[in-house]
């Protein structure tokens, strides 16, 4: 069971990484980052079948931190939307992307 789960986790992680690099909408980029974190969670759960409970505990920390990050990140996205009325990162010209 471990190998398919690890392969799935790697595939999800790559999809998330490509999504961040390819998509230009800040919300979608953020969703792709969340996808990466969930790929990591899957890997932890899979490995904890080998090594014991520690990996599953780590997953709880990752989920908690991801929630905190989402709160701050969405607030930042709202604050930039108020200035530009868009969340497409190509439209932000003051600093170079």
């Amino acid at each position, binding site marked *: 069971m471990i190998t398919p789960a690890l392969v799935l986790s790697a595939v999800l*992680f790559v999809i998330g990484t490509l999504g961040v690099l390819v998509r230009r909408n800040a919300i979608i980029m953020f969703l792709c980052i969340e996808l990466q974190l969930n790929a990591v969670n899957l890997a932890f759960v899979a490995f904890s079948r080998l090594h014991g409970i520690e990996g599953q505990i780590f997953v709880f920390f990752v989920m908690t931190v991801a929630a905190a990050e989402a709160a701050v990140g969405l607030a930042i996205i709202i604050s930039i939307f108020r200035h530009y009325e868009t969340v497409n*990162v190509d439209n932000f010209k003051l600093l170079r992307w």
Partner: protein
Amino acid sequence: MELDFSQQIHYVWALLPEIVLCVWGMIVLIAGVSGKHQDADDGAAGDPSFGPKSDLGWLTLLGILLAAGANGWLYGVNEVGDSSMIAVDGFRLFANWIFLLAAALTVLISFVYIYRLRLQAGEFYALILFATAGMMFMAGARDLIVIFLGLEVMSIAVYALAAFNRRDRKSAEAGLKYFLLGAFSTGFFLYGIALVYGATGSTNIAAINTSVASMAASPGLLVVAIALLAIGFGFKVSAVPFHMWTPDVYEGAPTPVTAWMSAAVKAAAFVAFFRVFLVGFDAAYDTWFPIMWWLAAITMVTANLIALVQTNVKRMLAYSSIAHAGYLLVALTAANENAAAGMLFYLLIYTLMNIGAFAVVMSVAHQAEERLYIDDYAGFGWAQPGIGLFLTIFLLSLAGFPGTGGFMGKIYLLQGAADSELWVLSVILVLSTVASYWYYLRVAWVMWMKEPTSKDQHSLVVVPLPMCLALIVCVGLIIYTGIFPGAAIDFARSSVQGLGSLGGGMLGLGL
């Protein structure tokens, strides 16, 4: 006092500085929204450093002082019995001094800035305290879980600080960029932890090293894990090629936040980087040595070359901070006791000179975000000889001029590199330092040698009293460590000694 981690209560004593900072952060937050401070903004002239808007800043400084007391108290405790997730060793405590110093200096230089730009003082100072606590967790972690939590406590607070000036588009953009790329790098970092856990069966740094040492050759899983962790840390310390966010975020973020980010966040990331790689992956040194070698070389060369053509001072200092990350990566590549002590010493000096330089930049920018181009400094030296001289000293120290702390720092980094016989890397370090003289000294030249465009161009520059205090501390310590480095470097050397006995045999590395 003796700490025995089989008793849960002893974790409270081991984490006392962090706990003090978190509690104090909440006190500052509550004091900030209590209302008195919000409507005190009547635009009155004069030095607002002691007005009702600024007492929160002094309250914050008191908290930092208390945490410093707790940190000093930890020198008196001994660990007995099994080791825990939290290290109580000199390495952590020295790093804590750097973080507390950086936080105190940042608070001192941001009084008038917060007043002028009408930022919420309570939230600003509270976020600084929370992020400092996160940095301390990173420095004291003996387990990857704690490093991850510390990294996030720090990062989330700093994302908010970078976007803190809501009225400014640039600040919002800097916040978004830092957030997206920071969270992206966290993904890599976490995947690295997951693979380390898979390969070694533990997230405890000492246990990881024991497990790695027992393997005949590094398995593929571990190699990928080390590379992913290096990417994650590379983003945080802004090593080339993971530096894309640095100039933009440093330019857009409020200047006191930039000063603090460039010093303290980098220091925290480097301290954790050192502990994970030198203690955790000591036995896999041959695997990560080439990665670090190239990271260091590319970072030093690229950053110094791009810095040559910058016209905005904040961007120039951002590239300078990337270059300094390269110098510190040389110490990581060398991976011996002298290099680790040199790194701690350099981080201390770097904190002083970088925050000092940004403080003067803030003064020139009228304690706001106005005049940030190198041309705006024309004739500044003669108009304001006091802080003109200070800025010159900071620039000379960043460049590594003899007689300043920056010079001694580079000497110790080179000594560490020589101990591991990294001759090529040492030559690159010296040559890129020579190249960096051009862009540091150009600012000094514009400042002293060029005529100002109008007579009263610099008449509005103010240096409030708290900033004066911070500048004097920075200059004093830079000159002192430049001439008498003995005490500081001996302290750094004794601080890294505990590091080796924790995990594997960091100090005896198979070189």
